[in-house]
């Protein structure tokens, strides 16, 4: 067995796999992958037997969504997603990588941002009514929202609207946050795709900028940014000592003057990074309740929620589409008018699936980001 592989197996408790198969029973890829039988258990077996090539050729190797659904059931607490994250680094050293969607557009803008001299022009979304301050100890970390807004405009995705809504909500609470002109992509996709080098470069630039800003608290509207800044920067780059919160975590601690007038029925998609990765389940539900929305849960919810089907802009195809359609049908079955998400990627992926001209009505449901929903609610009722 390759020494690196042994190290990753050790680090991620892979030896403890009981071969029970609970992971395969819930893995969304296992359910829909038709080219080959793919399950976390099988991949682990290949790894333990020292068949590194087979591991990297496994259908699950690049298509695993790192959604952690398997970890929720694993009786041995095997860190399967983290094991794949680490072994993907090894695969990269052999010049292997997954099939990136959109001609690597997202990865490429990440790479361009990893040049420390690159001066972006990313704050055009800041309209005059939004109050920001350079002295604030709270930074609003925007992430790639302006880029997604441009790249997925055709799908009517909420991009900069989320950023504007976040600042509007913070202003409503009397906070004028800082926004950084030199902010970079957080590097989440690069890290989980095994491109540690770009991840570290992006992370170092971000940490430097955040330290320079004098901020103590970072608020994001992207669950992946939240996870990366909170868990992965300290683990892989530097313990920055800053408090990192997704906006919903921050808002749950605030007091809203609850609008008791009951509004539309909504259903909520737990984003993998906010739910299973960060354990934030109650905050978004509490906020929606406070604001008077009737929440109708889907059949699989909270830590059993189904992922939106694609991760890290890699390996999108029939499997992803099947997962998205399944989830949208589940959302539709609740009878809710709106599917609320807390992650722009969930929104992009679901809206993309909704382009299907044949399924049409079967999966047609309005999709909103929780941030814009909160902002609209607050502005409506003061």
């Amino acid at each position: 067995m390759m020494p690196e592989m042994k190290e990753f197996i050790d680090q991620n408790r892979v030896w403890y796999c009981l071969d029970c198969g609970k992971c395969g029973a819930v893995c969304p890829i296992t359910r829909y992958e038709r080219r080959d039988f793919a399950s976390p258990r099988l991949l682990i077996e290949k790894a333990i037997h020292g068949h590194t090539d087979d591991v990297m050729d496994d259908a699950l190797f690049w298509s695993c969504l790192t959604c952690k659904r398997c970890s929720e059931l694993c009786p041995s607490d095997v860190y399967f997603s983290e094991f794949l994250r680490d072994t993907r680094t090894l695969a990269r050293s052999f010049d292997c990588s997954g099939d990136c969607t959109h001609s690597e557009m997202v990865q490429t803008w990440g790479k361009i941002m990893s040049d420390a001299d690159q001066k972006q022009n990313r704050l055009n979304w800041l309209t005059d009514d939004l109050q920001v301050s350079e002295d604030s100890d709270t930074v609003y970390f925007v992430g790639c929202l302006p880029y997604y807004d441009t790249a997925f405009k055709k799908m009517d995705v909420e991009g900069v609207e989320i950023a504007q809504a976040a600042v509007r909500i913070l202003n409503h609470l009397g906070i004028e946050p800082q926004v950084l002109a030199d902010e970079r992509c957080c590097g989440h996709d690069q890290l989980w795709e095994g491109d540690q080098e770009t991840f570290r470069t992006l992370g170092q630039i971000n940490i430097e900028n955040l330290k320079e800003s004098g901020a103590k608290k970072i608020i994001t509207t992207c669950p992946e940014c939240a996870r990366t800044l909170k868990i992965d920067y300290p683990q892989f780059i530097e313990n920055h000592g800053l408090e990192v919160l997704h906006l919903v975590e921050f808002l749950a601690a605030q007091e809203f003057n609850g609008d008791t007038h009951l509004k539309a029925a909504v259903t909520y998609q737990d984003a993998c990074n906010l739910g299973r990765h960060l354990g934030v389940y109650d905050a978004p539900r509490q906020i929606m309740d406070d604001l008077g929305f009737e929440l109708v849960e889907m059949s699989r919810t909270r830590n059993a929620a189904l992922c939106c089907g694609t991760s890290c802009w890699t390996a999108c195809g029939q499997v992803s589409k099947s997962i998205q359609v399944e989830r949208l049908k589940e959302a539709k079955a609740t009878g809710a008018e709106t599917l609320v998400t807390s992650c722009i990627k969930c929104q992009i992926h679901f809206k993309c699936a909704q382009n299907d001209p044949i399924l049409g009505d079967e999966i047609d449901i309005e999709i909103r980001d929780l941030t814009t929903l909160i902002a609209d609610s607050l502005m409506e009722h003061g």
Partner: protein
Amino acid sequence: MTTLHPDNIMEGKLQSSSKVIVITCNWNAYSGLETAGTERLTYSSSVHPIKVMCLGQISPGIILKAFEKGANGVLMLGCPPGECQFEFGNRRAEEIYKEVKELVALLGYREEQFKLDWIAAREGQTFVDVVGNFVDGLNGSANNDA
């Protein structure tokens, strides 16, 4: 065999010090380039043309990849309106151009660094003029932050 992977397309083109990528469609624009050649017209040696079957098949990621690999500028050259070999290819190219233009602006590149233009078939002189203006535009504005 070289595949159509964005890395492979751009890597070879950008190894030299010259860094202007001109993407031409196979029909009108490339015909302009060929005519310039047969008429012995010259243009900047920093220009590296990439011929594609239709400009509408270029995806935004490939253009961003050119900038990532160090291109100073990317010029897309296609068929004039109404003359696309595939009917809708140049309209598609225009959509792609609009999207990428916003992306490269966000990334901090200047407007002159990314352009779209049309060349009619066999117009060698127009090709040389358009490409020349693009290269002049790049050199004219200083402090290239690419």
